[in-house]
């Protein structure tokens, strides 16, 4: 009996230490620049398109990137959000048209992943846990399981960098990445950009994620005051 208790305590201790290590970033996870990314000159990028204004902002952020460096690109869209999927396709087409012909291999290297919503607008709070769980299961599949079978080999994460702008479902995606980190699989760096709409207070997603993500960027100076974790670099959208 005492052996069972003892091993239980030991496992619990190990899990606590691991969780703390991940959340505090110690031992420091090397940046991809310091890792050997199989000498790759490109990085894969994933972005969550949260619909409406969030999608507009996320699309502007992605459009700022050099697509010949950031390839392939994964757009994560909520179920039923055809407008966001359409915007992703439109951006890819316009970027493909502007890339030179020498970069043809960079063209159309993107995919759109559809995840179930954590909570629909006006959905009852009673049924939210079950839809959130379904959403989490799918995110785990996307972040942890799918890369194991990818042609690029399982040493590569589902994306090298994940860009988030809110709302709700992006928290679930972030939890999936944390679980992925927890079991020691290669994980993306997470850059969270708070919405331009947030002038004096963080969004709920922002408050939940600001201690968890690798970079937390705000777009109004007041939000970055008294907290060195929050970076302000002017307007990004």
């Amino acid at each position: 009996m005492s052996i069972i208790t003892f091993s239980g305590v030991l496992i619990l201790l190990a899990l606590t230490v691991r969780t703390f290590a991940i959340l505090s970033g110690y031992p420091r996870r090397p940046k991809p620049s310091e890792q050997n990314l199989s000498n790759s000159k490109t990085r894969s990028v994933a972005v969550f398109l949260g619909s409406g204004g969030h999608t507009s902002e996320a699309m502007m952020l992605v459009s700022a990137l050099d697509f010949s460096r950031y390839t392939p690109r994964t757009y994560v869209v909520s179920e039923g959000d055809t407008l966001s999927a359409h915007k992703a396709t439109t951006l890819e087409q316009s970027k493909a048209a502007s890339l030179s012909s020498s970069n043809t291999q960079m063209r159309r290297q993107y995919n759109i992943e559809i995840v179930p919503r954590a909570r629909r607008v006006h959905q009852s709070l009673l049924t939210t846990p079950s839809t959130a769980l379904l959403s989490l299961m799918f995110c785990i599949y996307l972040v942890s399981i799918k890369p194991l079978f990818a042609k690029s080999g399982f040493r590569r994460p589902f994306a090298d960098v994940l860009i988030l702008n809110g709302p709700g479902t992006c928290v679930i995606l972030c939890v999936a990445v944390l679980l992925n980190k927890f079991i020691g699989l290669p994980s993306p760096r997470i850059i969270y950009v708070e919405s331009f709409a947030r002038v004096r207070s963080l969004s709920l997603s922002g408050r939940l994620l600001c201690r968890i993500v690798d970079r937390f960027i705000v777009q109004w100076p007041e939000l970055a005051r008294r907290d060195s974790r929050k970076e302000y670099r002017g307007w990004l959208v």
Partner: protein
Amino acid sequence: MLVFVTVGSTKFDALAQAVLSESVLKSLHDKGYKYLVLQRGNSDVGISEETLSLRREGVDIEAWKYKASIQTDIERADLVISHSGSGTVLDVLRLGKPLIVVPNPTLLDNHQEELASELENLGYLKAASVGNLQETIANFEPSSLVPFPPFDGSAFRALVDEEMGFQ
């Protein structure tokens, strides 16, 4: 001249009703706005039709429940009156259109007010309430607005490049 009004994709009864009121339409007419296109969303303005044309106070009005894209409406407009949703605000200002915003006070997590007053302080737009919309239109001088800076992706590009080890 054409004024385009959007209340967002949800509902904002008070704003939709205000722009169709006699006093606001008169002010618009006095300022030379003879055409008005309204996207009312689910707002209750006593119209059940998906789209309806009417004429009030000498203003030709086209009332839509929902438009798939408002981009061309913004491009055509000489003035935009809008809720203070950040997506619409950015779209309108980037197209260089004079903008009057009316924050929706019925939204639960109300940050529309903050964005509106901050952008007004910087001189990019005029913020109004449903109550003073008529006076705001009457006193509005589009030429007094500060031009909005164009989109600049360089800061974000530099940030991601740095994080991903590109120098």
